[in-house]
């Protein structure tokens, strides 16, 4: 047991080192002001409108991406399993549905570039000029 814990701790440490920052991205046309608090609330389904009045559509990265785990930890301040439990409560009680999860960083960038009111996150190394970065964590 002790060994397992030790290995888990080590591997968590390594993945943290290996991981880049998280960038929150929106469409180039999006001029809304979005605070850090807003970002957390949007991705937890607690806020659905931007300061411009537009309905915002958040996208997650699919499970298994290190950027997703990083995002959960740094922005939502929860572990992946806490996030999973959080959405389970809402899904199975008709009180909400989690954002759609996209399979790759490329798919996320393309979706945000196409949808004016989309918001998503990627690792900061994947940033390109198709999208606008509003915050990094």
């Amino acid at each position, binding site marked *: 047991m002790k060994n397992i*814990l030790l290995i*888990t*701790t080590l591997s*968590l440490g390594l993945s943290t080192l290996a991981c880049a920052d998280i960038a929150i991205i929106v469409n180039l046309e999006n001029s809304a002001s979005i605070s850090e608090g807003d970002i957390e609330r949007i991705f937890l389904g*607690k*806020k*659905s*409108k931007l300061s411009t009045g537009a*309905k915002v559509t958040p996208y997650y990265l699919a*499970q298994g991406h290190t950027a997703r785990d990083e995002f959960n930890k740094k922005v939502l301040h929860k*572990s*992946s*399993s806490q996030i*999973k*439990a*959080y959405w*389970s*409560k809402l*899904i*199975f*009680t*008709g*009180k909400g*549905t989690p954002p759609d999860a996209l399979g790759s960083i490329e798919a996320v960038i393309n979706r945000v570039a196409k949808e004016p009111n989309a918001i998503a996150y990627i690792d900061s190394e994947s940033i390109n000029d198709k999208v606008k970065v509003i915050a990094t964590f």
Partner: protein
Amino acid sequence: MGSIALLTATGATAEINFRGFGTVAAGHAFGTDEGQDVIGYEDYWDFRKGSLIALQMNADLEDKLSATAQFLSRGISDFEVEMEWAYLSYEINDELRLNAGRMQAPFYRYSDYLDVHYAYNWLEAPDRVYNLRFPSFDGLSLLYNTSIGPIDSALQIILGKIDSTFTGTTARAEYDTLMGFSWQGSWDWFSLRASYLQADVSFASTDIDGIVAGFSSLSASTGDLSAGFTAESTRLSTIDNSFSNELAGFASQYSSFSASYLEIADQVDTVDDRGYFAGIGFSIDWRALIVESEAVEYETKDAFFPKATAYYLTIGARVGETIIYGTIEGQNSDGKAAELADIDIATLNANLTANQATFSSNNSDVLLQTALGSNQVIAGTDTTLRSVLSPPIDTTNKSIGIRWDFHSSAALKAEYNIEDNKQNNSDGKLFRVAIDFVF
């Protein structure tokens, strides 16, 4: 989790999502007295009681309308499939959502997702509070989510009815005009919750019917005795005026007993009796610290089930993917008998016996012997009937448990629970282990 797109009659596509959850659990009670259990577990490994699996289907019908159905199969019901949720949901605007159909009413903090064990840290929600299980209700639910400054407020208002047969019995429960609200305010790491629901409650079961019939028959017997004493009092009114008055006094006592038994029968019979459920709770999720607590009180006036109160307090710590917690919980009720008037047959019986000589001198021996014999039967029946009513409850449970998220969609849980039943002076221990998952 899966998703398929269907072509609807109108040609539009409806996206259908399948999701589900389940639990595989085993439990074993230790140190229990003969015939006693701990939270339903006995002195052997039970792999079925806590196990369940559910599948939820959600169809997005577009234009803010969606349909959801949840099928649940429990080990305790021989894995018979029940439809727990089936509702249409309409998103009126960003803050308001109206659901119509079959849903779970928000009695407790965890009522909504009591079966989704994965969504909470305990192996099962604390039993002393959650052992009063409410079936799903049919009706309307309005959800109003809003932010007041830094506070997220979630208000739910419901209206509907519960009509349900208890598992494995022919007993039926009806909650008519079920209405109420729950409110939860969350601020960063702290959240507060309150709920209040009421309904017109009816229970139908052969057990209750038998007890009601028993008390009604006692009302009839004491009524007959009252009539007997009245007749004798009339006969003796010109012969022995003072004894005649005494007999009239006995008649009046029997008459009041008869009225009391009729009232008791009505207090046990449960037909359209107003019941309420009130709950408050809070939770703290701050850094590594987790605190959760709820207190509830429920009562249906003049009904078979007596007033009861219950609470729990859980304190836990989060260490990486592991949560360790301890819970103390309690449930109290004075029992139904305590809510009913005492019928003092013994004193009446003593007064009758004290007058034995006067009965003899007035040739009223037959009446006296009949009364004394009847009193014995009445007192015996009275005791028996009261003993089968809902007994007093004074039970405390203490437990420690662990949750380990060993997988991205599954958690392993173990719990050790010590139950102290002060009412019948018995105690027992329970060890449970479970794997909860979502898909």
